[in-house]
């Protein structure tokens, strides 16, 4: 009880302190500096309509590469920790026909929608990460509905690696063509899609990278799910 009281007092003081700091960053005021630059130039410089996407993929490409890496680490780490010589799913309760049939119907749609999300990343909210997560949800549903279901994890791992490599390769192609890592040569040099701003075929290499990320995130999250749902079985 004392602990709870102490915790509450401590937290209130910390909270008050944070609030004091935040008081100096008034809510709703225009505090943009670099942000405004992005808004002003995003269309001509990247071909994307969605400024967030341009920031994520173009201006702050290193962050995104890192972000992809973080997820890769998580997938690898989970795989490493839950690695067992022989693993199988050991669920006791079958999914009812309601769930299994629902899943059958939903999975194609969910996957399609995931793909929709990541290829429209430069136009609408979302992009590779939510798209990938959506695709992974399709696999999650399969796991939930069918107690024996397994993704082809070897293939998934390979896809995961290969798309990761291709992301870096896209960056290196930029380095080779434009002299800068992650240089968007498609937009900057080729000017591909200049006529198309706001339509699908625009945004330089954003759709390519978001497709890569979408596949990567999808396979990685599915891999994590796969690893977590299986248990060791004796041989």
């Amino acid at each position, binding site marked *: 009880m004392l602990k709870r009281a102490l915790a509450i007092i401590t937290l209130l003081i910390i909270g008050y302190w944070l609030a004091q700091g935040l008081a100096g960053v008034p809510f709703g005021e225009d505090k943009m500096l670099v942000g405004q630059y992005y808004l002003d130039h995003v269309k001509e410089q990247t071909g994307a309509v969605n400024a967030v996407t341009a920031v994520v993929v173009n201006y702050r490409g290193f962050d995104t590469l890192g972000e992809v890496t973080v997820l890769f680490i998580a997938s690898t780490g989970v795989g490493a920790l839950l690695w067992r010589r022989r693993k199988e799913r050991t669920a006791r*309760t079958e999914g*009812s026909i*309601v*769930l299994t049939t*629902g899943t059958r*119907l*939903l999975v194609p*749609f969910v996957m399609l929608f995931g793909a929709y999300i990541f290829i429209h990343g430069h136009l609408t909210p979302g992009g590779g990460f939510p798209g990938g997560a959506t695709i992974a949800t399709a696999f999650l549903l399969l796991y939930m509905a069918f107690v024996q279901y397994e993704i082809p994890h070897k293939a998934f791992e390979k896809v995961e690696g290969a798309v990761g490599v291709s992301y870096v390769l896209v960056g290196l192609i930029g380095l080779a063509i434009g002299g800068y890592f992650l240089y968007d040569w498609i937009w900057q040099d080729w000017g591909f899609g200049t006529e198309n701003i706001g339509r699908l075929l625009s945004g330089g290499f954003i759709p390519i990278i978001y497709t890569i990320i979408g596949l990567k995130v999808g396979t990685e999250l599915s891999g994590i799910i796969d690893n977590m749902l299986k248990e060791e079985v004796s041989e």
Partner: protein
Amino acid sequence: MNALTAIGEALVLIGTFFYFLSALGLIRMPDVYNRMQTSTKSATLGSLGVMAGVGIWALGTDFGSAAWLTKSLVIATFLLLTNPISAHALIRAAYKSGIPLWEGSVVDKYREHLEAGKKEEVEAPKETPEEGGEE
């Protein structure tokens, strides 16, 4: 204000009212089974109302387009399909994790069904749910 926006507003109002009802059901009903009885239906209908309402309403505005309607109907359909599935999954989870029926319940044919199945398998009954009790 035109007819479309008026219909849309009405539908949205109905929808949000059912949202409210749904949450109220969560509070008023005595146990988890009956809470689900009241809340899932209302939430789904509420969503239907809100989505359709927004789609129709948007059509009546200067910025609206058919895409608004189709997209919101896709969402509505999705919810119409998935909400009952999750309700079903949840009620099954409630039952299988050992939460007893409300004391005023009059019949439990599912228990009989399960016990009949168990007699055949000759297996120890799993009485204690893994995380059912709580606190």
